[in-house]
């Protein structure tokens, strides 16, 4: 896209290659290899941290266990705030994994100079800057809240579409499409825009100037992970409670 700029820089830590992928072929279709490589790294980090924390769990925590307990309590608080004391426990793994996966992806993409690892095409970056990942997560969120609603109320779940009035039926149906759409595009846009801004600034002024933007990018990344998880929790809560009885 802007790769002509890179000729000016003899040494490049970041290069703009939007839309180029490290394609793997599976049967007739393709997958984006760089996304999977990064997501495996993220999954590996999460699993190793979890195993290190729980391998030798103590009553009085220390080191990595303390840190992971802090993370778990943060996630539990987040889920409890959205879903309420009674319902939150079974949803902690889903909402928490959303948060952890997006957060570690975003920060991993922002903090580590992946450009140093050469791929045949495309580049390693946060898995969340690929629309496939964010749409996958958003659709899973949709499925999750439908599942939550059906499990709680059975077919009565559909009553929420015509309550309080059937006039709002089209809007209620539309909501089910806008929710995953806004979720996925918010995350995708923020992360991609952040990486693009940083890359452009690094191309223009390689030293010091991009630092504040990078810091801002870290902040945005964390906020986006929080927003995604919070909204997922809010949607599930809405499906569990129904429109009519939202005010307790």
């Amino acid at each position, binding site marked *: 896209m802007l790769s002509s700029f890179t000729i000016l820089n003899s040494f490049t830590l970041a290069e703009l290659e939007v839309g180029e992928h490290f394609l793997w072929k599976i049967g007739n279709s393709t997958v984006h290899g760089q996304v999977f490589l990064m*997501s495996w790294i993220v999954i590996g980090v999460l699993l190793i941290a979890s195993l290190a924390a*729980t391998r030798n769990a103590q009553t009085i925590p220390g080191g990595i266990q303390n840190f992971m307990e802090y993370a778990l309590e943060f996630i539990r608080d987040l889920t409890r705030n959205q879903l309420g004391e009674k319902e939150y426990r079974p949803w902690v793994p889903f909402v928490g994994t959303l948060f952890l996966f997006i957060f570690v992806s975003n920060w991993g993409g922002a903090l580590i100079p992946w450009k140093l690892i050469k791929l045949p095409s495309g580049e390693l970056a946060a898995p969340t800057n690929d629309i496939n990942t964010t749409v*996958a997560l958003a659709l899973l969120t949709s499925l999750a809240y439908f599942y939550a609603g059906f499990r709680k109320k059975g077919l009565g779940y559909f009553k929420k579409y015509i309550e309080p009035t059937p006039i709002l039926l089209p809007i209620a149906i539309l909501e089910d499409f806008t929710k995953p759409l806004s979720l996925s595009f918010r995350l995708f846009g923020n992360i991609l825009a952040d990486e693009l801004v940083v890359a452009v600034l690094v191309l223009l002024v390689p030293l010091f100037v991009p630092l504040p933007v990078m810091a801002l990018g870290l902040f945005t990344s964390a906020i986006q992970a929080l927003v995604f998880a919070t909204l997922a929790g809010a949607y599930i809560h809405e499906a569990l409670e129904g429109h009519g009885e939202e005010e307790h």
Partner: protein
Amino acid sequence: MFDFDLTMPLMAVQFLLLTALLNAVFYKPLTKVLDERDAFIRGSQSSAKDNLAKAESLVEEYERQIALARKESQSVVEKAQAEAREIVSQKTAEAQSAAIAQKEKAAQEIQQQKESALSTLEQQVDSLSRQILEKILGAELVK
């Protein structure tokens, strides 16, 4: 930029696998640890509360005993003081009565001695006056 392909469903499956894995190695064990710690803290807190209540009741009991002992000692002191006062007054009365008796006895003795002295004096006065008369008037006239 918006090229969807097999990445999306595979990523979804992968994410669900990650959720299941993390549930097994992260959420469940750590939640168990947290709950156990909560239970432990709550247990020790309640036992500490029990101990505190026990200690407080003991303190109350001891204070009650102390107050009782103090009251007892006070009554003992008062009794002793009253006894002492009684003994003092009794002794004083005894001493006074003894003194009065002695005084009376002494007065009686004095009176007796005075009387006997007076009687002897009277006799002597008689004989002396006779002797004086004899001397002045002569012995023949006196008889």
